[in-house]
């Protein structure tokens, strides 16, 4: 193939036609653009006028150049140019095919095998012996040069290994390479590796080396970690080129034991960045079920990260027997437990039966004496199924009769009446310290700080079983912590309080360690080598190169030191390893692993899966020529004056389209403007329904209401704003008026999320179906049905018809009717709590303590409020004086509503007036 500057030509003889270009130049130059014939009566006036310039009878040079270029491109195009022409130069002698065979190869493993197969077949045709070597699985002995046919059968059995080549093994293998010359074809996985340069040098001394490497960047997932209660998952990649997005999938078992996708998130790599991370905020129930994270669509062990106990946060339920007294925080029985457990566990508080439904890992009862009969059995069942019930003593427990004469099912030991206090003003002796923990106790090995002292405790009755159940004692041998196993679970009793009243134990670090040993709190995530010395770990499940979880089978145990330090290798495949009481995940990619793209010296020809493919340029050149010719048409038209105004318009439009195709840069400013507009003053807002007339009326209505508020009250709103639910931020508005039309679109999921957030944080929406003249509230009208559709996804509390003593009836005016343009009495607000009772002598019930999030009605208030620009009423209301009265009431309802929105239940406080007067009088 004829090659010029890296471009080959399939029909090079056609290039000779380029020599004809100068001739064409002269020919074209002589031909001026053809004239237009025009009928024009004014020609009589033109007679005798001559042209000033005469050179335009020749084609202008730039147009000529344009045409020459087009012709040249056509000639070049038909000459069949090919970028990166492939030279198939077959070698001779033995051929060594080296493949890295790591996890990074796994995603396109089949294509690599195909490539190897093609090479092997080529070699077979050329009669060359072939050896295929996988660097992660080095062959012992000499290079296995064999006939190509024998390799073809073995290729399918090659599998990528889920680890990187072992540098030490590779170095020794390089030493065993034979000195006879052979050519090498190396299928690289694209990752930098220390041993690569050595091997390359060794191979180059023996013959030609060609490298095959995919240009696509390699993605890998780092182990997930915790940060401020969220799971943080990070991924890394080799090529920091363009923006890329990969989907993170969290997998785990659902309650039925089926593996499911539990959560997904997008990891977005910014251009130029090699790292991306995403925070996943998952409920603990879901989070504890996650067994591994994957990058979706990537078949590679590097794209899978197994999770171990480090990611699992235990759910701890806390129940205190004594009501918290305000201001005595440090005396709270749960304070120290909260402090100790908060960083490492998820805490649940609530009613005992509700908590049991959540199935916590640990239930802590701090100074809870009696458990009601109804709660006893579920609690016992829960403990038998593996729950840990942790109880602390305290004044209540000491004073109660529980487990006194007979051992309570939920107490580890019987207790003596009264307990004892040591070292107090009325007792002999010093406060007691702890005795060193005995072997066999879960606390064995913990150092006891000297300042831990116990001054009060409850005493265990000596029983035959007592000795087995004691796991910590005081210096004088009295039990401090006792434990009883029930079924799969256990009950542990600390004979002191969980606060510092009876002992200084909760103040010490020992308390945290003890809780940790009891598996109440979660351990620090990464064990150090010292922690693991002398332990042996057995693989539970292992990953293969493709990232599939396989049963470990009979893999030998791995010593703890190996587990703690190094990267996975043949002796320790990545997977989940089980030790005595915990599981540790070994992943291909660690938190610190860096992925670097492999760099090859310039002398090595690197062939890629995609980049250096032969690229026929014919189509591109011809397209360019066509584009030039189109430009030529336009230019010629322009030159001859045939580009009329209409076609000029078309050209301008095309240009504009190109310009407008660029992404708009100032989308942000509108949001800021809205924020400024809405927050500088009080602003009423209505929702844009898409019906221009309804929107205009709503806007005019709010304008009328704003005017009325300005005149009559201290609320001085500025002009109302129309709010687009899809794009605008709602939190600036205290109040939204939402007229319902039957054909308005349902808001998107994001818009609903925004609306719900708005409603939860004190916003109010006035829904107006505007049809009270023809329908009552409900399904009867299209607007009512639409409202139900719209409100289905909204977080709306139970509603009731506006009661007579609702605060809306008296926030500014005293009202009992709330008419708009229609005078229906169906106005719905948030229902009063069921326990709201009218107290004797009070005019009103003490109703709910906040602003009703919605008011729903159909009275078409906006029409009654609406004024035009001149300040005139836009719509008639009713007839005559009664109509004006109705409009006045509508305005008053608007005023009351806004007062309610802005001042909340302030007027409800009048219910306390009698009580306050009463108190003042005394």
């Amino acid at each position, binding site marked *: 193939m004829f090659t010029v500057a890296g471009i080959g030509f399939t029909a090079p003889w056609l290039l000779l036609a380029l020599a004809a270009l100068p001739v064409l130049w002269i020919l074209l130059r002589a031909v*001026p*653009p*053809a*004239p*237009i*014939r*025009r*009928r*024009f*009566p*004014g*020609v*009589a*006036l*033109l*007679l005798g*006028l001559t*042209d*000033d*310039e*005469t050179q*335009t*009878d020749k084609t202008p040079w730039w147009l000529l150049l344009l045409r020459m270029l087009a012709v040249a491109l056509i000639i070049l195009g038909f000459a069949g140019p090919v970028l990166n022409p492939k030279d198939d130069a077959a070698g001779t002698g033995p051929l060594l095919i080296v493949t890295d065979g790591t996890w990074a190869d796994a995603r396109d493993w089949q294509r690599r095998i195909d490539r190897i197969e093609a090479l092997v077949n080529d070699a077979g045709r050329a009669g060359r012996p072939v050896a295929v070597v996988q660097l992660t699985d080095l062959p012992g002995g000499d290079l296995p040069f064999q006939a190509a046919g024998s390799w073809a059968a073995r290729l399918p059995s090659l599998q990528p290994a889920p680890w990187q080549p072992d540098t030490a093994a590779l170095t020794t293998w390089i030493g065993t390479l034979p000195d006879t010359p052979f050519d090498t074809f190396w299928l690289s996985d694209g990752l930098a590796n220390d041993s690569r340069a050595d091997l390359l040098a060794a191979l180059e001394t023996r013959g030609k080396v060609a490298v095959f490497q995919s240009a696509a960047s390699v993605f890998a997932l780092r182990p997930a970690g915790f940060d401020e209660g969220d799971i943080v998952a990070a991924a890394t990649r080799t090529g920091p080129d363009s923006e890329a997005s990969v989907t993170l999938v969290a997998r785990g078992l659902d309650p039925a034991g089926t593996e499911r996708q539990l959560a997904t998130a997008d990891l977005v790599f910014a251009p130029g960045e090699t790292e991306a991370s995403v925070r996943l905020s998952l409920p603990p129930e879901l989070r504890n079920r996650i067994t591994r994270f994957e990058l979706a669509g990537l078949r590679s062990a590097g794209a899978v990260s197994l999770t171990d106990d480090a990611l699992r946060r235990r759910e701890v339920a806390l129940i205190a027997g004594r009501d918290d007294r305000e201001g005595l925080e440090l005396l709270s029985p749960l304070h120290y437990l909260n402090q100790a457990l908060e960083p490492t566990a998820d805490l649940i508080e609530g009613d005992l039966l509700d908590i049991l439904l959540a199935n916590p890992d640990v239930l802590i009862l701090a100074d809870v004496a009696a458990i009601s009969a109804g709660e006893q059995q579920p609690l016992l069942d829960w403990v038998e199924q593996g729950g840990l019930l942790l109880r602390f003593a305290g004044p209540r427990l000491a004073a109660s009769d529980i487990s006194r004469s007979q051992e309570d099912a939920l107490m580890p030991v019987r207790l003596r009446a009264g307990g004892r206090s040591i070292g107090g003003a009325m007792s002999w002796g010093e406060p007691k310290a702890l005795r060193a923990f005995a072997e066999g106790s879960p606390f064995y090995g913990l150092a006891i700080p000297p300042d831990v002292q116990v001054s009060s405790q409850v005493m265990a009755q000596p029983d035959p079983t007592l000795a087995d159940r004691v796991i910590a004692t005081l210096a004088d041998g009295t039990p401090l912590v006792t434990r009883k196993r029930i079924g799969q679970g256990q009950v542990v009793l600390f004979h002191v309080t969980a606060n510092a009243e009876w002992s200084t134990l909760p103040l010490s670090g020992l308390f945290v360690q003890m809780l940790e040993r009891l598996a109440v709190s979660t351990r620090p995530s990464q064990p150090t080598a010292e922690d693991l010395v002398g332990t042996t770990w057995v693989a539970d499940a292992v990953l293969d190169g493709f990232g599939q979880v396989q049963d470990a089978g009979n893999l030998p145990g791995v010593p703890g030191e190996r587990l703690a330090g190094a990267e996975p290798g043949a002796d320790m495949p990545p997977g989940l390893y089980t030790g005595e009481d915990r599981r540790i995940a070994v992943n291909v990619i660690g938190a610190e692993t860096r992925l670097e793209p492999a760099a090859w010296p310039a002398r090595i020809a690197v062939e890629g899966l995609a980049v250096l493919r032969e690229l026929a340029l014919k189509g591109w050149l011809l397209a360019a020529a066509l584009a030039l010719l189109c430009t030529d048409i336009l230019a010629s038209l322009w*030159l*001859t*004056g*045939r580009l009329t*105004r209409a076609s000029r318009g078309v050209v301008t439009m095309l240009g504009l389209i190109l310009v407008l195709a660029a992404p708009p840069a100032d989308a942000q400013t509108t949001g800021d403007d809205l924020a400024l507009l809405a927050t500088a003053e009080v602003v009423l807002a209505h929702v844009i329904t898409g019906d221009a007339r309804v929107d205009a009326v709503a806007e005019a209505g709010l304008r009328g209401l704003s005017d009325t508020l300005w005149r009559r009250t201290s609320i001085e709103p500025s002009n109302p704003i129309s709010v687009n639910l899809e794009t605008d931020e709602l939190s600036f508005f205290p109040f939204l008026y939402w007229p319902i039309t039957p054909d308005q679109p349902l808001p998107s999921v994001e818009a609903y999320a925004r609306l719900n957030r708005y409603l939860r944080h004190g916003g109010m929406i006035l829904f107006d179906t505007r049809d009270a003249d023809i329908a009552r509230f409900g399904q009867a009208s299209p607007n009512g049905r639409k409202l139900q559709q719209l409100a289905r996804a909204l977080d709306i509390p139970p509603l009731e018809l506006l009661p007579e003593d609702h605060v809306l009836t008296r926030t500014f005016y005293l009202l009992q009717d709330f008419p708009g343009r229609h005078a229906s009495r169906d106005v719905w607000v948030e229902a009063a709590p069921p326990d709201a009772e009218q107290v004797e002598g009070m005019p009103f019930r003490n109703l709910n303590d906040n602003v009703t999030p919605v008011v729903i009605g159909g009275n078409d208030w906006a029409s009654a409020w609406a004024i035009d620009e001149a300040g005139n009423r836009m719509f008639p209301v009713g007839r005559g004086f009664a109509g004006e009265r109705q409009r006045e009431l509508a305005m008053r309802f608007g005023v009351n509503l806004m007062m309610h929105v802005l001042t909340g239940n302030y007027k409800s406080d009048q219910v306390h007036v009698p009580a306050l007067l009463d108190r003042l009088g005394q």
Partner: protein
Amino acid sequence: MNQTAPQTHAKLRQRAEQLAGPLPPLLAEAEHLAQAVLLGAHGRRRSGTGDEFWQYRPARAGDEARMVDWRRSARSDAHFVREKEWQAAQSVLLWVDEARSMDFSSDRNRPTKADRARLLAMAISVLLIYGGERVALASLGTPPRSSQLQLLRIAQNFTEAKESEDYGTPVIRIMPPHSRALFVSDFMGDVVPVEAQLTRAADRGVRGVIYQVLDPVEEAFPFDGRTIFESMGGTIRHETLKAGDLRDRYLDRLAERKAKLADLARATDWQYACHHTNDSAQSALLWLYGALERKH
């Protein structure tokens, strides 16, 4: 005979239809246009011969006895004479350019200059004849007449296809002295015959209006590039390489032509106006009517 009679009859009918076809629209359109201007009775606002009552005046010496209106006189002591309003019919001569150059329109939706000129001439004829004046069309060659039939004749003349030259010159054979005249043309051709005709008319005491009808394109000259301009008949052509360069000079010449016509009108006590086919015909008609009505 039996065979040919229906044929000739049908042929005659067909031709008559053909002939009458374009008449009503033009006439109707012209009448419609004229309706807006028609002001009612067309009197001279002075006493004279006519049908309409003008005033009573005291009888003077020299009035014949039969002129005295006895009925009026009986109601008082003096004698009164009943005077009638002077209703003199004016003769108006129309010349509408029928040359090829008038068949030009720069836009499909715009009437040609000829269409507009004929419409205006027709409408003014309707107005004048309804007003009792006598109207003559130069190309008909007949003396001025005041009848509905004359309207039909004029309309028929306008709708007939005629072979004509590229640029027209006013050729007027019958020109009653002290009559009025209306020349409608684009005045793009040679201006010398127009000048000669005008001078001749002025000599005979004829006054009137020079009405130039132009297409907006002729005013704007929005051409560019290499162009061969041809007259509508194709007899005159002019080639240019950059039409855009000619614009200013063309517009100068056009302005010069207009100035020339205006000067000519001033010198002969005529009136001159220029009308563009994209403007309203209504206002043009109003102006024309006013101009012809003007007392001197």
